[in-house]
C-alpha cells in the first residue's frame, strides 16, 4: 500500500513538473483565469444601463412632459436624440443609434383629460430580442408607475389593491450576483478539463506512454497519478476565483465553505472523469483538446449558466441531467446567494458523484483496452 502511494506520488511530481516547467504553461494556468473572471464579470450582465433612446413627443402638454421626464430620470435609459419629424425614427433605429423610441401622439393629453385611455407608442429594435424584451419591460414599468401615481393623485378612493414586491436573496436584482458564481464554475471546469484531457494524449503523442506502461505502476495508479494533479490545480484555481468573486466583486457568500468545497470536490471528480475519458480515447493532443471542446461547449450551454433550464423544451431538459455543470451551478448559486444548507444540496451532490464514478470506471476500462 505504501509502495503504491509512493509510486503515485512520484507520478504526480512528474505531472506537476511537466505542467509547470514551461513558463508559458505556468502563466496560462494563473493569469488568464483571473483576467477572464474580472473582464467577463463586468461584461456579463443582463441589467440594462444607459440604453440609448429617443423621444418623439407630439403632445407637449404637462402629462406628456411628466412621462418623458420619468424616462429621463431612469438610470436604465440615456436619451440620444429628440425627434421632431416621423421620418427621423427609421434611421435612428436602423443605424442602431437608438434602441427605443418613445412616441407620444398629439392627442395624448386631451385623451387623458377626457378620461379615455391614452396610448404611448414604444418602438424597439428587435435585433437583440432579449434586450428588446428587457427594454420593453423597463419601459412598461415606468408607465405603470406613472399610472399608479395618477390613480393616487386622482384621489377617487385610491387603488383597491397594490403590489408590494420584494426579492429574496438578491434584493437589488443584480444579474451579476447570478452570473459571477456561474463564471467561476465555468473557468474551473475549463482549466481542469484541459489539464486532464491533454495529459495522456501528450504522452501518447510523444511516445512516452509506452514507457509509462512498462513501469511497475498499475493502471489505477497511473490514473490516480494523472487525476490528482488536476484535482489540486482545480481546487487552487477555484479558491483563487472564489476569493476574487467575494473580495473584488462583493458577491455575498452566505453558505458554509464546507458545503461549497464538498460541491467543488464532487464537481472536480466529474470533470476529471470526463477529462480522463477523453484523454484515454484521444491519440493526439489535438484530438484531446477538440474532444474536451466538443464536450464543453454543449455542457456550458445546457448548464443553465445564462439561459434557465426551465425554459428549455422537455427533451433538452432531460439531456441536461447528464451535464455536471448543471448541478454545480445550483450548488454555487445556492451556497453563495441563498446560504443553502448541506442537506438541501444532496440532490445535487449525488448526481455529480455518480457521473464522476461512471466516467472514471469507463476511463479505467478504456485505459486497459486501448494500449496503442
Amino acid at each position, binding site marked *: 500500500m505504501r509502495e503504491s502511494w509512493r509510486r503515485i506520488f512520484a507520478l504526480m511530481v512528474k505531472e506537476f513538473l511537466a505542467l509547470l516547467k514551461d513558463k508559458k504553461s505556468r502563466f496560462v494556468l494563473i493569469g488568464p483565469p483571473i483576467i477572464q473572471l474580472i473582464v467577463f464579470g463586468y461584461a456579463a450582465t443582463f441589467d440594462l444601463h444607459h440604453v440609448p433612446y429617443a423621444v418623439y413627443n407630439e403632445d407637449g402638454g404637462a402629462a406628456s412632459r411628466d412621462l418623458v421626464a420619468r424616462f429621463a430620470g431612469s438610470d436604465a435609459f440615456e436619451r440620444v436624440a429628440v425627434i421632431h419629424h416621423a421620418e427621423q425614427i427609421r434611421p435612428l433605429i436602423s443605424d442602431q443609434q437608438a434602441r427605443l423610441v418613445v412616441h407620444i401622439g398629439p392627442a395624448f393629453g386631451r385623451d387623458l383629460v377626457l378620461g379615455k385611455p391614452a396610448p404611448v407608442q414604444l418602438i424597439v429594435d428587435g435585433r437583440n430580442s432579449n434586450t428588446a424584451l428587457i427594454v420593453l419591460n423597463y419601459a412598461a414599468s415606468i408607465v405603470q408607475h406613472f*399610472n399608479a401615481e395618477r390613480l393616487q393623485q386622482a384621489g377617487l378612493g385610491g387603488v383597491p389593491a397594490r403590489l408590494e414586491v*420584494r426579492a429574496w436573496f438578491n434584493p437589488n436584482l443584480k444579474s451579476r450576483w447570478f452570473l459571477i458564481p456561474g463564471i467561476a464554475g465555468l473557468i474551473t471546469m475549463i482549466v481542469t478539463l484541459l489539464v486532464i484531457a491533454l495529459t495522456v494524449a501528450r504522452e501518447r503523442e510523444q511516445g512516452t506512454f509506452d514507457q509509462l506502461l512498462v513501469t511497475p505502476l498499475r493502471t489505477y495508479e497511473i490514473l490516480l497519478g494523472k487525476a490528482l494533479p488536476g484535482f489540486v490545480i482545480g481546487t487552487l484555481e477555484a479558491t483563487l476565483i472564489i476569493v476574487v468573486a467575494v473580495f473584488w466583486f462583493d458577491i455575498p457568500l452566505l453558505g458554509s465553505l464546507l458545503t461549497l468545497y464538498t460541491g467543488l470536490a464532487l464537481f472536480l471528480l466529474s470533470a476529471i472523469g470526463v477529462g480522463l475519458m477523453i484523454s484515454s480515447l484521444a491519440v493526439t493532443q489535438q484530438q484531446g483538446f477538440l474532444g474536451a471542446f466538443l464536450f464543453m461547449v454543449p455542457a456550458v450551454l445546457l448548464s443553465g449558466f445564462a439561459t434557465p433550464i426551465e425554459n428549455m423544451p422537455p427533451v433538452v431538459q432531460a439531456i441536461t441531467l447528464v451535464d455536471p455543470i448543471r448541478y454545480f451551478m445550483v450548488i454555487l448559486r445556492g451556497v453563495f446567494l441563498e446560504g443553502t444548507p448541506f442537506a438541501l444540496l444532496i440532490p445535487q451532490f449525488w448526481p455529480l458523484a455518480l457521473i464522476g464514478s461512471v466516467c472514471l470506471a469507463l476511463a479505467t476500462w478504456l485505459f486497459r483496452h486501448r494500449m496503442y
Partner: protein
Amino acid sequence: MIRLSGMRLRGLIRKEFLQILRDPSSIAISFVLPVVLLLLFGYGVSLDARHVPIALVVDQPDAGTASFTGSFRHLLYFDPVMMSDMHAAEQAMREGSVDAIVHLRADFGRKLYRAEGTPVQVIVNGVNANTARIIIGYGSGVWANWLTQYARANGLALAAPVQVEQRVWFNSELRSRDYLVPGLIAIIMTLIGALLTALVVSREWERGTMESLMSTPVHIAEILLGKVIPYFVLGTGGMLLSVAMAVWLFAVPLRGSFLLLFLVASLFLLVALGMGLLISTVARNQFVASQIALIVTFLPAFLLSGFIFEISSMPKVVQVITHIIPARYFVSLLHTLFMAGDIRSVIWPNTLALAVMALLFFGLVRRISRKRLD
C-alpha cells in the same frame, strides 16, 4: 517580391487536406459541433420565461381573493399552486420548487373597500435577476388587468391609464431564435478559424516537422498560404452549412443580400485564421496554444461580442475592450444582415474594422514568421 510556386503550394494544400480528412476531430469541430450548437440554440435555449411556478397563499379566502387569484390562472406565464400558509410557501421557495410567492393577507377582503387599499405581498426569488424581473413584469401586468376589471365590475371611476403600444422592429414576435442563431454563426466560424488553425501550426512546431518544412525550398509565405487555404475552405463549408440551417430549418429571415453576407463572412474568416496563425506562431506548444486560443477567441466571442450580453450595458472600460474583439463587428453585421437588411451605415464601419484587423494579423504573422526563419 516573393515568387510563389503553384506546384509547391498545391502539394502543401494537399498534405493539409489529407491531415484534416484523416483526423476525425477536425471534421467533428467543423461540421458536427456547428450542427449540435445550432440545434441546441435553435430548439433548446431560450431566455423567455414561461410557465413560471408560483405559490399563491391566501390567509382568508373570500370572493375578493378568488377574483384576484383567478386572474393568475389560464395564463401562459404562470403555473400557480395554492399553498395553505406562508411557512409552506417559503419552504417551497428555498427548495426551488416555486420562483415567486403571492401573499394575500387576512385583511385583504376587508381593506379592499377602504380608501387606503390593501397591499398584496409579492416575493420573488432574485437569484436569477433576469428571470425575476420578467416575473415581476408579468405579475404587474396581471395586477393591472385585474384592477381594470375590478373597477369596471364595481363601477369605480379610476383615472384613465396610459396604455403601452409596442412596436418591435425587425423581429416583431421577439423570437429569441432569430437573434441567437445568426450570432452563433460568428462563434462557429471563430472555432473553425482560430482554434483549429492555432492547433495545427503549433503541432508542426512541437513535433519538429516545421523545421523540416523550412529546410525545403518552400517559402514561408507558401507554408502560411498552405495552412490558410484548406482551413478557409473548411470554414466556408461550416458557414454555408450554418446559414442553410438558419434559413431553412429555423426559418430565420435573411433580409439582406446573400452575396454581402458571404463576403463579410469570408472577411471574418480571414481575421479568425490570422488570429489562429498568430497564436500558434507565438505559442509553438499545443497546450499553450489551445489555452490561449480558448481565452482570446472563443470566450470573448461568446461573452464580449454582443452575442448574449448587451455591449452598451457594460462598463466603459469593458466597452473599449470589446473593440479589439473581431466577433463584435461580425455579430453586429450578422444581426443586421439577417434581420434588418443591407443597411449601409452599419455595414461599412464594421466591414472596415474587420478588414483592418485581417491586415494587422496577417502582417504580424508574416513579420514574426520571417524572424524565426533567420
